[in-house]
């Protein structure tokens, strides 16, 4: 996925002179996850450069650049470090178009690796996406594979609204279905691991069907798409798995369409449970598909604790927990 994201930025830097990239260590070094590798060398220091360690300043500066007419792409080194920029994102980027009645807007993209799976502990593993979906004016996007990652990132950069683009860091090097005991895989053998060179865009706001099925709908995104696939295979239940991709805007038709068909719904995310994005999904499904539901909608999520470093796998909502929930819903 690293190469796919790199390619998206490469394509956009080449297409649009108003695109520029900055963030901590993204310049000469190419980023701690190497996602911007080689871009400064290719496009020069003016277009790809290191920023002071000041997430708030980075976003503020991006907003100012956006107001001027540029399309800045900011890398936040870890999603856990986005909070210092919360005010600039919430009070400024998200509100600018509204408060100026369209005179100014913030066409910025904030990329941030999120989620666990690398023993990063509580400050290198968080999934803060739910917070941003509560903030009107922001879009939130999370890819689950290299093909989507590139197409979605290109759309995010082209979007005229501020987009938070969270990258499941555990998927950078290969798919991961939660079976941490298995040998590490790369994307090489994965269908969505093949990424075309050049430009292509995947529209924001559209979910993908990761698996078609009739018995149950699983709503997932990011790493959890792979976990859901594994758990489905293990239970043998014919689940339909939606890879939401875009958390805001929400692809409500895809969701209600599937739940109306299956009558059952499971929501999975790695973020902590209470008031997470899964709560909104649950509320929406319940409001719109109440009379179709044959069992309670369940959520499998990270526990409501910080990510405890050594207990990574006890925390991570892996296939065992997802499978158990599938069985429970099917029994319900």
């Amino acid at each position, binding site marked *: 996925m690293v190469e796919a994201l790199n390619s998206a930025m490469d394509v956009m830097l080449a297409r649009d002179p108003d695109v520029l990239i900055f963030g901590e260590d993204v310049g000469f070094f190419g980023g701690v996850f190497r996602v911007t590798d080689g871009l400064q060398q290719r496009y020069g220091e003016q277009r790809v450069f290191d920023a002071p360690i000041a997430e708030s300043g980075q976003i503020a500066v991006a907003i100012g650049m*956006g107001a001027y007419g540029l399309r800045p792409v900011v890398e936040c080194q870890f999603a856990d470090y986005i909070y210092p920029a919360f005010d600039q994102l919430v009070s*400024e980027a998200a509100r600018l178009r509204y408060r100026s009645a369209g005179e100014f807007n913030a066409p910025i993209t904030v990329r941030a690796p999120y989620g666990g799976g690398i023993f990063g502990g509580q400050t290198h593993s968080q999934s803060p996406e739910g917070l941003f979906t509560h903030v009107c004016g922001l879009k939130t996007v999370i890819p689950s594979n290299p093909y989507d990652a590139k197409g979605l990132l290109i759309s995010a950069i082209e979007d005229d609204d501020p987009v938070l683009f969270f990258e499941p860091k555990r998927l950078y090097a290969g798919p991961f279905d939660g079976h941490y005991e298995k040998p590490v895989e790369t994307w090489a053998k994965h269908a969505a691991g093949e990424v075309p060179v050049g430009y292509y865009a995947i529209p924001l706001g559209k979910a993908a069907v990761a698996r078609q099925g009739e018995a149950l709908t699983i709503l997932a995104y990011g790493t959890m798409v792979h976990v859901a696939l594994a758990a489905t295979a293990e239970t043998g239940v014919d689940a339909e798995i939606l890879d939401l991709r875009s958390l805001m805007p929400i692809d409500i038709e895809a969701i209600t369409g599937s739940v109306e068909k299956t009558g059952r719904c499971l929501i999975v995310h790695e973020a902590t449970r209470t008031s997470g994005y899964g709560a909104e999904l649950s509320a929406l499904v319940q409001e719109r598909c109440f009379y179709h539901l044959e069992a309670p909608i369940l959520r499998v999520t990270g526990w409501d604790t910080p990510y405890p470093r050594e207990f990574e796998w006890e925390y991570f909502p892996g296939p065992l927990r997802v499978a158990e929930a599938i069985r429970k819903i099917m029994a319900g």
Partner: protein
Amino acid sequence: MKHDSSLRLHIPESRFRPGDVPDFNYLNLPKAGVAKRPKTDAKASETRDLAYGLVRVIDDAGAAVGPWDPKLDPETLRKGLRYMLLTRVFDDRMFKAQRQGKTPFYMKCTGEEAVSVAQALVLNRDDMCFASYRQQGLLIARDWPVFDLMCQIYSNTLDRLKGRQLPVLYSVREAGFFSLSGNLGTQYPQAVGWAMASAYKRDTKIAAAWIGEGASAEGDFHQALTFAAVYRAPVILNLSNNQWAISSSQGVAGGEETTFASRAVGFGFPGIRVDGNDFLAVYAVSRWAAERARNNHGPTLIEHFTYRAAPHSTSDDPSRYRPGDEYQRWPLGDPIIRLKGHLMRLGEWDEARHTALMAELEAEVDTANKKAQKLGVHGGGPYHDPSTMFEDVYKEMPWHLREQQAELALFREKKP
């Protein structure tokens, strides 16, 4: 280790509270004309003294003195006077409108008109201003019609911000005036970003930002100074030290031990403290900073030493926290009276012309006000259609907002 028996927590307090007789002698203000003027390409280290001094040009007798005298022609001086006066007349009228219930809120900049007007005359019209709520003078000096501002203040049918924003939180892209935020300080690093973008595009436009001394305690201030210093951004960072942040004195913001201009010293770019009530001084320092920025020498922080003569806003009652006559005792006077005095001393102005100008501006504001009020006022309307409230959250309205818009429409039909 040697130490006192115990530590003590120091709490800064305002020197004067209601009942006290303010005495500003402790300020030890330097005289007009004494501040040195380095070249605009001077090294920052050669400008350090300016952070601790006070650039003043108009002396007590109304003469322009010293190396910072911008030597403006009388035409420009009269323009400055006119804009400052118009700003004040406008403020007074809008304050009254709030008291009459035509708008729920207003904020005056009385006493601080030079801070915005003088710099506006220095900047090009396409330089972008990232102001706080106390720089209406920028728009006025750029000839933006007060009528348009009134429509925003009244939230009427011609309010360009469609009733969404608190009165005075303007946005006028056409006049190089960035959308005002209600959140203090956020505009400061944004201005730096805009300036960086201009430099990135090898453009010639610069940015200017304003912040209050109170808000300079926010992290955004630090971000702005850091990014401006690191990328040598072509930006003028103005800080209006008007002594008060609502009820808190400038000491609470960190002004007890040093000047706010000296913050820039810590970042290696020039910080200049200027008499904010001296039109010529503000003009001169602004021109210095603009020239420096345009020639790729980077940012300048300008501390405008001034005084907030009016209440913080129409919601505020300063008699609760400061002596009623504090402004009368403020040693740097009133920017309008001082520029007027200077012009009169030059023989370029007199009381009759002043009275006539005043009458003209009052009539202008009155006419605009009547026209604006006819188009609707707060509480009575008419306004924009409320359904517009769902627009501009995103460029394209997503389904959930369309649904909510429809729901509101239903309720508005049902309403008794």
